[in-house]
């Protein structure tokens, strides 16, 4: 049996002419099939790994809805820092609210509010931002990022799970009581 088999193989040339109408030999079919299944398996494993890693990005340490306090706690033109929430809550002179991320969009250092300059200041590369977070000069690429502000029953709530990048300050970004 075994001998026959070997004989068989030796007699046939390695790449036989395929009969008319056939385009794929059994061996090629197996090769392609196994290759395709293998590639599929790799893709699946890759996908599983990626999704496995993805899920953790939702358990951020900050990224809750933060209750800032009653609307009346914040006089017009004031800046209040919420360190744990990572934001400054501003109340514009016309009464609108804006929550700004306290990290510099350049390389991520924390900015401070300097009332006497009427500016936010980043110590790392000496950048400054005005009251609404617009930057004054490079290397900063964009204004301070913002969080969305909601007002429920006279209480200011700040959603810190999503940062909004802005081109520039625009009045629509303010939330009114």
């Amino acid at each position, binding site marked *: 049996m075994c001998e026959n088999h070997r004989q068989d193989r030796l007699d046939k040339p390695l790449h036989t002419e395929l009969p008319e109408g056939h385009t794929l030999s059994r061996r090629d079919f197996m090769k392609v099939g196994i290759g395709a299944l293998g590639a599929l398996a790799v893709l699946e494993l890759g996908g599983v790994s990626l999704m496995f890693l993805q899920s953790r990005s939702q358990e951020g340490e900050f990224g809750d809805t933060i209750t800032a306090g009653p609307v009346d706690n914040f006089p017009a033109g004031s800046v209040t820092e919420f360190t744990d929430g990572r934001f400054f809550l501003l109340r514009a002179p016309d009464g609108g609210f804006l929550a700004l991320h306290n990290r510099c969009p350049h390389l991520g250092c924390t900015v401070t509010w300097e009332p006497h300059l009427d500016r936010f200041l980043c110590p790392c590369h000496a950048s400054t931002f005005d009251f609404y977070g617009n930057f004054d000069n490079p*290397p900063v690429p964009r204004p301070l990022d913002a969080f969305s502000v909601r007002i429920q029953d006279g209480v200011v709530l700040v959603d810190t799970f999503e940062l909004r990048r802005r081109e520039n300050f625009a009045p629509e970004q303010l939330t009114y009581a």
Partner: protein
Amino acid sequence: MRSLPLRSWKERLLYTPQAEPETRSRIRAVTDSLILHVHPAKVPVSALRFTYTWALGGISATLALLLLVTGVLLMFRYEPTIERAYTSIQQLETQVVFGSLVRAIHHWSANLLVLTTFLHLLRVFLTGGYKKGRAVNWLIGIGLMLLVLLFNFTGYLLPWDQLAYWAITVSTSLISYVPVIGPTISRVALAGPEVGQGALSNFYALHVAVLPVMTTAALGYHFWRVRKDGGISRPEREEGRAERVTTMPHLVRRELAVAAAVIAAIVIWGMLQPAPLAELANPTRSPNPAKAAWFFVGLQELLLHMDTLAAMALIVLVLGGMVILPRWDRHEENIGIYFRSPAGRRSALLGALLSIDLVPLLVFADEAWIDLPAMFPAWPTLVSNGLIPLAGALIGLAAVYAIPRKVFKANHSEALVGLFSFLMASLVVLTIIGNIFRGPNMALVLPF
């Protein structure tokens, strides 16, 4: 007679049922054949010259081994959570017996490894060690250099002190400026909106599992390849008639001596100088100045002087040049000779001196007088602060290549030595300026 049980155990482990006198030679045979898997039986005398390799590859390998051993020890004590990481390091420093020493050895070996790997790369470049079929090992070497940097980078975060937290914050922000892939890499690395538990878990898994496996594989290949390529490079005129000596003891004894010296030096240094630990990470207050990890500070310095995209372009060009180097410099006749030739030596000196003079001058001038965006207010900053400095840098590099060609009558290979020396010296100078001469607000200061 009392040692008999012990000896019989040894014998069983080594499958040597023979009687006494042969045991020793058997053990010898086993270790010998192990060594001969890595080394050839005989090596040319010239390959043993200390002043050829400066043993830099061997020193790096020893450090890697030390890192492995101390790293495994640290894993038993370190806890990778943001609540416990810093405390577990503090306990290591104050309560665990030899904790401070083990951590110090790991810390200093890691930082030294960046240095020795870089110097080894320089040595291989300067002796043309990537020539004559050694291109693949040059590429593996570049991969190893990147792995060493990644190792240090991921390890940087683990103590969870202020230095760690803000260095990683600044570095990942830098990464997010890389066009197209940068933001994704940075987001995946952080697994969250800022450096936090997600980032710590990521960095820990990379540091203790993924990178060790990759590095071990790459190193194994690197060593095997050195042997496969016919041993390390040496001058062409020697080939064939080189005097050879047996690997054992001539090479092995030297390797052991270097390893012993490195281990002794690191342990003594570690006893004198514990690894630093700043105060607990505070995500609500960055220190001033906030710098990237020290080996990336040269890059951060570059970014102070030109637009991010321009700096990235420059880095990609230099890295690309290193990758294609084996095809770019095909003068194989000068392999194994430091600086290639007297003309190459002069080019190297010129390149290094130019860099040491020019780079600090330019940094200072840019700080004090040059304000490109203000000088060309009509143009977008991408042009005034990006294209202009990039073009300036490229013209400067072309000049560094052209001068030796013209003045020293250097050939292509020798002029490349000048260019490479200029680039590497500039990297060193920028790294020194950024680490030592930058104070609060990243302003230039004197360190003393």
